[in-house]
């Protein structure tokens, strides 16, 4: 009988290893999911750091329509709209579009914009050299700002795609994590515009 008990114990240990392994696997699904989506781009998330624009050949033969949609998450009081709703671009061309935000609340709010591209696979071909979504955006009560987004479409974009939509959702992340101090916000309207 004790022989039996030993066998049982061995088996229990093996099974517990599976249990612990599967618990770990549940958590491993999180990075796996992100990696999988990064590679395939299927969840429409664009890269969250700037791409570098190297002069590439512009493909004049194709014209792609890009549409911009904005929304604020529930409970987020900001006004948020795209100043350019729709733009026609040639793959390889660098473009800048602006987004307007205003904080109508009577307190400082820090925002984070989250992009989503549809159809999802376009996320792999939409390269942003500058985006307000790379950083959190603070605004004091009543302040407004214009936030630029600079991008180009990779000429490798699959032939069958001639139209895609970029959506930004603005989340209230006040008190969560690091953000620029308000005075450093480069997009504030009050600031003298640099360049042009």
């Amino acid at each position, binding site marked *: 009988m004790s022989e*039996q008990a030993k*066998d*049982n114990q061995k*088996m*229990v240990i093996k*099974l*517990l290893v*599976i*249990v*612990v*392994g*599967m*618990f770990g*696997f*549940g*958590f491993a*699904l*999180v990075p796996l*999911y992100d990696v999988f*989506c990064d590679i*395939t781009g*299927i*969840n*429409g*998330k664009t890269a*969250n750091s700037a791409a570098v624009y190297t002069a590439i050949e512009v493909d004049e033969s194709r014209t792609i329509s890009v549409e911009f949609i904005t929304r604020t*998450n529930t409970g987020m009081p900001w006004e948020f709209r795209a100043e350019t709703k729709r733009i026609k671009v040639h793959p390889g061309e660098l473009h800048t579009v602006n987004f307007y935000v205003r904080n109508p609340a009577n307190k400082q709010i820090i925002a*984070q914009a*989250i992009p989503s591209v*549809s*159809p*999802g*696979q376009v996320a792999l071909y939409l390269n942003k050299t500058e985006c307000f979504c790379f950083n959190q955006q603070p605004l004091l009560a009543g302040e407004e700002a214009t936030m630029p987004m600079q991008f180009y479409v990779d000429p490798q974009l699959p032939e069958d795609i001639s139209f895609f939509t970029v959506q930004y*959702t603005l*989340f*209230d*992340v006040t008190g*969560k*994590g690091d953000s620029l101090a308000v005075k450093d916000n480069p997009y504030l309207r009050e600031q003298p515009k640099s360049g042009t």
Partner: protein
Amino acid sequence: MAHSTDTIAPEHTTAHEHDDHHDHHIPSGIKRWLYTTNHKDIGTLYLWFAFIMFLIGGAMAMVIRLELFQPGLQIVDPNFFNQMTTVHGLIMVFGAVMPAFTGLANWLVPMMIGAPDMALPRMNNWSFWILPGAFLILLSSLFMEGGGPSFGWTFYAPLSTTYSGDSTALFVFSVHIMGASSIMGAINVIVTIFNMRAPGMTWMKMPLFVWTWLITAFLLIAVMPVLAGAVTMVLTDKFFGTSFFNAAGGGDPVMFQHIFWFFGHPEVYIMILPAFGIISQIVPTFARKKLFGYASMVYATASIALLSFVVWAHHMFTTGMPVAAEMFFMFATMLISVPTGVKVFNWVATMWRGSMTFEVPMLFAVAFIVLFTIGGLSGLMLAITPVDFQYHDTYFVVAHFHYVLVTGAIFSIMAAVYYWLPKWTGKMFDVTLAKWHFWCSLISVNVLFFPMHFVGLAGMPRRIPDYALQFADFNKWISLGGFAFGLSQLIFLALLIKACRKQGEPVSSQVWEGAEGLEWEIPSPAPYHTFETPPVVK
């Protein structure tokens, strides 16, 4: 013949003592049940617990159907309605169906493979006794300020993270305990089947109930830990500032659904594979023929279990997956109906030209085969991606999963109870009551769930306390069917109480004329200790 005086409810405590050579004395009263490590006692505990949960979860369904009896909001407020749908689902899945199957496994697996007990009796005691605690926590959360969980049994983020109440912590904790309990139960089943089979009980001689439970147990240890991970992530997202499912912090709410359904789809098979086993035991007995295609049944069960890991996203067709993924999950899902079809075919082939009789277990088994197949067919419809865009989150889905779970899993459990109850108590149950129970249940369950297909196709959304006027007539019928089904279960309750009081005609050890297998070779009622010396299986 047993004398009428040895009627200690609900089990045979005294009857066996004269031939019990064990020095350990069985304590009586509550202590017996608290400390018991006997597989039969623990099986009984599980089964009664599951039945009580079935009645509590059923009472919640009555609240839901009362509110939906008429359009408009009249009986309960929407937040409470949502708590009812949520807790009803959780209780029926984790409190009724799963513990009932574990109870049956405890009673039957050792007897079927010629083992004296489960391999790990101490752990067996624990895995049962943590369950009532888990459900006490879950149920008590309903009385908290702001109410209990109201985000659906699927607890999708952000409903369960951003928009849930404080009771979410209790919900998470109780799911952890339920998970631990079923993992322990599953480990016990696996070790018992691997290490405790009687000499000669080779793999391909094992009764199908044992096979299906073995495969179910592997599914359990593979996916219950993933569920534990998912609830843990919900907990930390809600209370500790992580962002697993929060887009603003870099997470993704759709990922919740992937993780949940990676658990969730195998979970639905956890709730049906043991049912397949039960039906495969019962049909040959009352058809007086050997099961048609035993080996193909084993392989079909194993392939259903394997395939169940690659179909989860059929619950997520409308989340905006790329077309290639939609296609993959559509075809993979349809593929599952092939082994499922094999099973249905084999049961029908077993009955074909058999000398059939329709005792109560067989009535439930035949009803299972017909009605489960209806549920499988609506499942096939749901698996077709483009049409799922219409059906998703409507009452059509509710109809589908109630056909597979109520007339599937639960009917199989009732069939099993009627089939083995005489073996457990030594007495035939009250057949008249049982027939009333069967026919009332059969008619009312179809009045309850069949019209749901139509209101679903017409667009009535699930989990909403109010509905458009056009659905009023159907919903009235659905509710009436619901109340009738609920009441029918009280007949079952009466029958079970009578059975535990040991009323009824004594039965032979074989009980049913065509029954075969080790459990039918020991006396009825099954003695407290069986197969102390292993039988030899030829």
